[in-house]
């Protein structure tokens, strides 16, 4: 057994909306090991997105511990959190979130820019990542000139270009047609096969079916946690 890549211990997240305090996560405990492909499922309002934000270091838990690759993120300041997001996490969003008016190559280069990688190496690595997602020929196109599927593949290239410890995908196929969905999910499978750790949030069971482990959330609590195929299971 390898050491878990990320550990959530008794994580609570509450939002204060004036008088009322809303609990988005209650006592969540979760270990994810390197190489796992975890699908987090749940109805809207079940706390999936909050979990995603905490896992992605975009938000901090109200209480409990979150250890990512051996670091307790609650002890980090803003600058260190930015570095963690930059080096350890690759985001894929439902709405693609490419920077507008910036071509695919530049978008994929962005994490490398913030990491301080030299321009020549940056371009090489970004191009390699685009080739991997099959967008090598669309590198110079702006997001507005790409289809939804192509935009999401560019976003995927951006997520992997830094070789992050974990890929976080929040409803990555939510805005895509069936064909593009299949393309993106096939790519995720390939990444998983190549040994990458993926946490994917979805409410569609056929998307979740591709994962090696399914965690179900309801009302801010984990209600089930099952390994479903041999692939990637520990």
């Amino acid at each position, binding site marked *: 057994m390898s050491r878990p890549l990320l550990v959530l211990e008794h994580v609570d997240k509450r939002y204060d909306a004036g008088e009322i305090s809303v609990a988005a996560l209650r006592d969540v405990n979760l270990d994810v090991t390197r190489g796992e492909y975890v699908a987090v499922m749940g109805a809207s309002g079940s706390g999936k997105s909050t979990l995603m*934000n905490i896992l*992605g270091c*975009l*938000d901090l838990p109200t209480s409990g511990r979150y250890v990512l690759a051996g670091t307790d993120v609650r002890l980090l300041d*803003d*600058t260190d959190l*930015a*570095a963690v*997001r*930059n*080096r350890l996490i690759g*985001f894929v*969003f439902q709405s693609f*979130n*490419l*920077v*507008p*008016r*910036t071509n695919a190559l530049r978008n994929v280069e*962005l*994490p490398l*820019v*913030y*990491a*301080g990688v030299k321009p020549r190496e940056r371009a090489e690595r970004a191009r390699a990542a685009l080739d991997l997602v099959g967008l090598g020929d669309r590198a110079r196109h702006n997001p507005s000139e790409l289809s939804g599927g192509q935009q999401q593949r560019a976003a995927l290239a*951006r997520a992997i270009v*830094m070789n992050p410890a974990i890929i976080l995908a929040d409803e990555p196929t939510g805005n895509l047609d069936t064909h593009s969905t299949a393309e993106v999910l096939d790519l995720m499978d390939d990444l998983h096969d190549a040994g990458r750790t993926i946490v994917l949030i979805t409410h569609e069971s056929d998307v979740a079916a591709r994962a090696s482990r399914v965690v179900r959330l309801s009302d801010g609590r984990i209600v089930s946690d099952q390994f479903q195929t041999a692939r990637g299971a520990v």
Partner: protein
Amino acid sequence: MNLRESARIAVQGIGANRLRSALTMLGILIGVGSVIVLVAVGNGSSVAVQKQIEGLGTNTLVVFRTRGGFGGGGGFVNRATNGTQSTNSQLTQKDVNALDDKTQAPDLAQVAPVVNASVTATYNGATYAPSQFVGTTANYLQVRNYTVAEGTAFTAEDVTNRTRVALLGQTVVENLFGGQDPVGATVQFNGIDFTVAGVLTPKGSNGAQDQDDVVIAPITAVQDTLVGQTTPLSDITIEARSRGAMSDAADEVTTVLLGTHHITDPTTADFQVLNQATLLATASSTNSVFTVLLGAVAAISLLVGGIGVMNIMLVTVTERTREIGIRKAIGARKSDILGQFLVEAVMLTVLGGVLGVAAGLIGSRFRIVGVTPVVAWYSVALAFGVAIAVGLFFGLYPANRAASLRPIEALRHE
């Protein structure tokens, strides 16, 4: 993220909203341009006044009669002697002779007595009243930096011989002769015939006074015919030995005249010694106040331009909130975002500043309200520097706002 990366993103941001960026830059352009032009106008008028005073002769001292030491100046002759004055409250030839004595006043090079007269000149049916009619000695021309363009100047002999000759300024020539050669012609001043000996080289008009609207004639002839022998002098115009000897010369003049006027207390002196250098200093200090005021007005427009930059940067930050969220999610630090927007704001003001400098330099090539602007290079550097500072200052708040956005909220922004 390095500066080059920030600059590239800034260029993209500016290019994405060309009209908006252009209008924002216009604010800075007008600010910088008007600082340069208005300071150049102030500077130009200062230079003009300086030239005007220097045109009077840089080493020149002028002695005026005053009454009992109270201000007031000049050539108001024919006044009854103030009863409280001891003996001699007028300037006379005796004063001139005393001042001409090198043992008493070694720092004076030339001493020229002056009587002014109010005359109407007629020639061949044309009449003209020159604004200045000066009866003086031959050395006056040298003291006042006048030279003769045509004909000849009158000489010391002409003064001694009471010859009725006159030198005319260009303006007078134009009004009386209208193209004909005046040298040798006979002109009547208040009905008295004078022969035109020469025409003065034009000095040009500079704002306050047309220096060519002048007639100069031997003092003796003028006293004979136009003002009378007993009329006191309007002033005594003196040239000091050198520019450095001006204050010594002024002291000597005071000492000598106190002696001839039998005055023991210098505070009750009945004359005033006007030092051209002091005049120059006063004029230039007045002008620098004027220049500073003009510059301040222009600086306000630069400030307004800066507020425009801030306004646009706030709009830009709001519009690009989502982009900021994306950048933060993929690892942009607070300082990266701050730098990006700060560079964009400064780039707007730098571009506006460069165009403003160009506009200012072009604008300064034209005459403005009768002044030929003289560009002060410090104002160019200052305006450009302030434009950059304005970009930094007014860009800081919006940039800081962008940098402080929380990533999840920024990402949720529509």
